[in-house]
């Protein structure tokens, strides 16, 4: 009897998978690491791993569409003479003119204003269009200080000192030369066409003791009117939150690793920082330990997509959330309408992340005048407003089902976790148990 070796299918390495191999070849061919926009694409424990329990015999729900469920939030109640009052706890995160087109920034302002919430400048200064179309505008105070000036500080509604962001805690930014138009170059006091590095730390302060004085200076310049936020990337949320409070912040903005960026090294985005879900409870614990929960407001960002995510973030103790990537999608980013053009760029709708190259078919992450024209700021603003309103309604729906007459009345007790990882990170019991994995050891 003759023996034939049975067919053995080729086996690819789990370690050296197709994507990894392609990245090695790309690095070898180009001599440069991959730079891209957006946040982490790896799967990490997230709000999807939490569920609401809803009301039953032990607690009763509120009638949908009939019984009131408040969504308003006031930010900056600790020291500011003029706190910000928003109709919804869903704010628009900082994104720069430069990274985004003027039309995109206008659309964000329009949409946020219709929905009764705030939008935020970015690393590039404040434009007149953005100020004009944003009822409530938060002005970012960044390490680069591009375009920073006292007049804009005074015409802002709040000031956000950016220490870090979730996509790259500890990292700065890079706006590549191809996006540096005449106007962007002028606003940033740099020659046209060169790569613009955004510093990773502030030029005139280091550490919490300095930050306290810096906050005091900004308050003095603005006569103590403006709420002052401190934004940190999700790295050491307990200590960063505590130190921000100690430094005198009115609001802490905490951005997990799903939070987007305009342009950063892929290796940074995928390997530095913590998932949003893991950041919230330590930050809330810090506020509670300092008896500052609800006195200093906490805004959570990084991967917020739906009203369910909003409700879960608030149930874990946040006062508000911020959206960036989702807001761009609402405007039209990565829309299948432009699929042919995405394919011409070697990608596909839903995966396009070369935001730094300025060739965005949707006209959002670009400074190309022709591409920018594709985005009608009025229509796009309306789309964003619709999305914000849907998210708010979704969060209300869940809150009513849990018997809450304000989104802020949601609490950890309303939640259960689907996985042990999520249970441990969010300090929520595993569904069907009273087990809190890892509790007691933040």
């Amino acid at each position, binding site marked *: 009897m003759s023996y034939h070796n049975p067919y053995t299918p080729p086996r690819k390495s789990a370690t050296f998978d197709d994507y990894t191999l392609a990245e090695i070849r790309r690095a070898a061919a*180009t*001599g*440069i690491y991959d730079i891209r926009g957006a946040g982490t694409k790896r799967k990490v424990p997230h709000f999807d791993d939490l569920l609401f329990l809803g009301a039953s015999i032990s607690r009763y729900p509120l009638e949908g569409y009939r019984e009131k469920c408040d969504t308003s939030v006031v930010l900056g109640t600790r020291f500011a003479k003029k706190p910000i009052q928003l109709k919804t706890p869903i704010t628009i995160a900082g994104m720069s003119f430069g990274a985004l087109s003027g039309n995109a920034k206008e659309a964000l302002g329009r949409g946020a204003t219709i929905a009764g919430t705030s939008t935020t400048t970015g690393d590039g200064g404040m434009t007149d269009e953005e100020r004009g179309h944003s009822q409530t505008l938060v002005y970012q105070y960044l390490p*680069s*200080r591009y375009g*920073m*000036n*006292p*007049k804009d*500080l005074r015409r802002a509604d709040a000031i956000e000192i950016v220490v870090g962001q979730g996509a790259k805690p500890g990292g700065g930014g*890079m706006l*590549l*030369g191809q996006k540096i138009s005449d106007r962007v170059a002028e606003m*940033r*006091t*740099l*020659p046209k*066409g*060169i*790569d613009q*590095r955004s*510093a990773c730390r502030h*030029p*005139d*302060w280091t550490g919490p003791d*300095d930050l306290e*004085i*810096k906050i*005091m*200076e900004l308050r*003095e*310049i*603005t*006569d*103590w009117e403006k709420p002052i936020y401190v934004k940190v990337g999700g790295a050491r949320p307990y200590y960063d939150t505590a130190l921000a409070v100690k430094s005198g912040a009115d609001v802490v903005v905490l951005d997990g690793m799903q939070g987007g960026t305009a342009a950063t090294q892929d290796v940074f985005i995928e390997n530095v920082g913590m998932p949003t879900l893991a950041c919230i409870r330590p930050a809330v614990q810090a506020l509670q330990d300092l008896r500052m929960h609800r006195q200093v407001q906490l805004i959570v960002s990084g991967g917020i997509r739906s009203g369910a995510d909003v409700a879960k973030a608030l149930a874990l103790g946040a006062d508000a959330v911020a959206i960036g990537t989702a807001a761009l999608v609402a405007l039209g980013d990565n829309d299948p309408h432009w699929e042919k053009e995405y394919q011409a760029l070697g990608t596909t709708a839903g995966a396009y992340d070369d935001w730094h190259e300025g060739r965005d078919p949707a006209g959002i992450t670009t400074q190309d005048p022709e591409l920018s024209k594709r985005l009608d700021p009025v229509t796009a603003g309306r789309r964003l407003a619709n999305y914000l309103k849907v998210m708010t309604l979704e969060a209300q729906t869940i809150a009513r089902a849990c018997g809450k007459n304000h989104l802020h009345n949601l609490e950890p007790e309303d939640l259960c976790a689907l996985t042990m990882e999520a249970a441990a990170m969010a300090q929520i019991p595993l569904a069907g148990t009273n087990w809190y994995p890892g509790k007691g050891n933040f």
Partner: protein
Amino acid sequence: MPLRELNSALHALTAGSNDTEFKVINPRGSHAVAVGVDAPVSVQIKGSVGYYCAGMNDGGAITVHGSAGPGVAENMMSGTVIIEGDASQYAGATGRGGLLVIKGNAASRCGISMKGIDIVVHGSIGHMSAFMGQSGHLVVLGDAGDALGDSLYEAKLFVRGTVKSLGSDCIEKEMRAEHLAKLSEILQRAGITGVRPEEFKRYGSARKLYNFNIDNAEAY
């Protein structure tokens, strides 16, 4: 007068205000003295100040008759700030205009990320000065510390004494007639006499790091 009242009074000034002369006595190292000034007012500070004195000054003429802590005249827009003594770290950081004169020495990171300000230091400056300087002029009558002008953009640096070392992408450049003229004008504005522009060397960006190139990786 408490700090809040001082800054509030300075901010309340409008065009045509009669109060154009302010004197601050015994500042005792206070932080944020005379910040956010946005009127052509004279502020004489009799003593040393802490952090961020004259921060974001826009049009004021502010003199510190003492020394200044970190970040003096940070992000200045216009006007003049004179420090009779020494200045700590980050003097003139991110300044976008105006003139900062330090009659003593300045510590590290003088003119960091400067964006159009002119800074004149009678003495010497510390390390990493003019780091990522984008625009404006830094004039040093004494010496400069390590890594002068690291990652420099288009700020122009003039040093009369020695430079301990230059930072990445910063090189000595030819002093042409237009540079001598500009330097002469700045020295005159700063009230400096007896010093000739020809005594200085000019430093600026080699512009090799303006667009990323993997072969320059060792410089990053």
